[in-house]
């Protein structure tokens, strides 16, 4: 039988129930502080105070070794914590990127000095990272990046521009993909990853307002920014391989299908008030099944990752289906509620709806566009 994808049996950790209870108790103290608009922002929301509290619980860098401030938890235990946070619509943005990718990259490819310097700060919620991949002329075609890091006597001089940098204006560090050799024509060759402090002289941050009226992302200009040789992560020239390895971690997590979950929860309560409304029953049931299956795939991938398998193709499936699910949620809300709903943004439901509706277009852009993901899938299927 033709089986292009593997989804191994889920193995939740024995500590699951206790850990969930602890996270829920922790979140109960915070939940009421968040407006529906904020819950609609989920992992985009940036709240340093919240992240420090999460860090104090030991829930950032959970899987990292204790010597770097980690908790020695399993990947599945980390999964439990983050899905509980996303289900609550918690503003995890101040530690999210470092916990998900910057920290693991430093742990895997960084020097011991770099690990000592950054990882403990990340785990306490005191160091926020942003991602410096995209440039004005390099979006999906990431290998064409031009930002240059020239060798100096004791490090690098960086010139160029990064863009769409989420929360760059609030972050402490950026991990930037830069060209240490050659030109944009050399593509994947000559790319490296460097850590740049966001307060480095010559680094200029211009905030970019988006259609929600807020300014989450930024344009970052590098004008002769000097960094030491110790800014380099891993090998010079290995930047592409490092940046694209383990994409499965980034593409299959609960953040790929739970951005709209807080709206779902409110829709369930709304439907309860309708009493035996068959349309809402059908819509809620279909959404519930969709989420359950996405979660089944996502947790199954996490189980495989924990076992050392890298299911990049399966992760692409989760992202493809997950973002489509998230984007569809506000449309389902309109169908269930009907009436004048959506004509204004007053009231809890309309407020969260307006947040998710306006953020939804970005769901299938960030982390690789829908078309790029499907291209990766079709290649994986042999086309």
């Amino acid at each position, binding site marked *: 039988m033709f089986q*292009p994808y593997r989804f191994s049996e*889920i193995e939740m950790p024995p500590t699951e129930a206790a850990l969930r209870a602890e996270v829920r108790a922790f979140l109960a103290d915070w939940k009421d502080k968040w407006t529906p608009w904020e819950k609609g922002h989920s992992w985009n929301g940036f709240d340093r105070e919240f992240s420090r509290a999460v860090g104090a619980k030991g829930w950032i860098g959970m899987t990292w070794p204790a010597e770097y401030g980690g908790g020695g938890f399993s990947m599945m235990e980390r999964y439990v914590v983050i899905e509980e946070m996303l289900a609550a619509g918690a503003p995890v943005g101040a530690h999210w990127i470092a916990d998900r990718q910057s920290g693991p990259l430093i742990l895997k490819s960084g020097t011991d000095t770099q690990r000592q310097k950054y990882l403990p700060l990340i785990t306490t919620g005191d160091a926020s990272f942003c991602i410096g991949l995209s440039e004005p002329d390099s979006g999906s075609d990431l290998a064409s990046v031009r930002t240059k890091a020239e060798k100096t006597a004791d490090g690098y001089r960086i010139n160029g521009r990064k863009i769409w940098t989420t929360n760059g204006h609030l972050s402490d560090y950026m991990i930037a993909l830069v060209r240490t050799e050659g030109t944009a024509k050399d593509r994947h060759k000559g790319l490296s990853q460097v850590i740049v402090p966001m307060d480095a002289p010559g680094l200029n941050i211009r905030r970019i307002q988006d259609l929600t009226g807020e300014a989450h992302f930024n344009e970052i200009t590098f004008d002769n920014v000097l960094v030491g040789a110790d800014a380099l992560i891993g090998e010079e020239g290995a930047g592409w391989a490092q940046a694209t390895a383990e994409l499965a971690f980034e593409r299959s997590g609960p953040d790929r299908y739970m951005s709209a979950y807080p709206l779902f929860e409110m*829709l369930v309560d709304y439907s309860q008030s309708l009493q035996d409304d068959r349309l809402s*029953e059908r819509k809620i*049931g279909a959404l519930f099944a969709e989420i*359950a299956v996405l979660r089944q795939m996502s947790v199954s991938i996490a189980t495989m990752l924990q076992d050392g398998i890298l299911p990049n193709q399966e992760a692409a499936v989760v992202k493809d289906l997950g973002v489509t699910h998230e984007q569809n949620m506000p449309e389902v809300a309109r169908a269930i509620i009907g009436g004048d709903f959506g004509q204004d943004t007053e009231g809890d439901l309309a407020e969260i709806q307006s947040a998710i509706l306006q953020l939804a277009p970005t769901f299938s852009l960030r982390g690789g566009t829908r078309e790029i993901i499907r291209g990766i899938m079709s290649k994986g299927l042999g086309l």
Partner: protein
Amino acid sequence: MNDDTNISRMLTDQLSRLLEASVDAPLLAKIEKGTAGSALNDAVAELGLDMALVPEDKDGAGLDWSDAAPLFEVLGYYAAPVDLGEQIIAQWALAQAGLPASDPAPAVALGLAKLSADGGLSGTVTIPWGSADRCVLVEAMQDDMRVLCLLDAAAMAASVPVSTVGRIPTRRLKLNGAAVQASGPLGAIGLGDVSALLRAAYIAGALSRALELTLDYCNTRTQFGRTIGKFQAVQQMVAQLASEAAAAKAGTQLGMTAMGSGNAGMQIAIAKQRASAAVAKSAAIAHEVHGAIGVTEEHILHYFTRRLWQWREEAGSEHVWAERLGREVIARGGAAAWPTMVGLSAR
């Protein structure tokens, strides 16, 4: 890997080899016309797989549902030219209800009948693979208790053939107080539930075949000097088909695993809902990519797409299951939805 998983793999391989060697479009055509010989049925019966889910102390193989799942998927992958899946759930249900295994296994009726105090059945049921010389299992409510009823072949004399999109030989039976040969109580999971779970697995298997056929065609059909799989528009469609097939499979896995751990009602609902929901888009894409040749009688694709359209309706469509699931989720309320969700796969 445990022993059961090894056994399951061995049995699945045996079944695959047999079906691979015997099932092709001409055979499927004969089966749909009701003119096929019983050779394949006999060969399948020889494997003794109908007892896969019956406990070992009742002379079954004692497999878990998740270990048996690949058997069901393989049947879907080959467009199920035999009702082995139905036979497996029939024997399982008999054992559940405390009734002896039946040789050969009875057909399985779709639909819920009513059992009156005097032992007569009423209601109308539909019986895929039913025939006038075969016993049939019917699920019925006796007051608020779920019971499994075995009807002997004589009861089938009143049945009439009914035409379906899947074109599997199917009969409809109006139960005008039909006498029950044997009956026994069913637990929380009834025959209708496992029929739905079986269809979910069939759908997952058939979708993976539809995907495979589509990929093969992409790599062989040439237009504008290139194989059509080189066109990005085609690639984007195929990726969506692959995603839907993966979702059907993952949902089925959720349902099958839950069968091993207590009440699987909600997981079965999810499995059948998601699998049925995957059919519309997937079948449409498979046909779009195949062009005109894909809708011809000779081409094998329609055996899969028609069965997909059939199986998505049988034992409850995505809409039927969504409504039941939604009613339950709404009754529990928004705050309970998340704990319910993660509870689906809790150990």
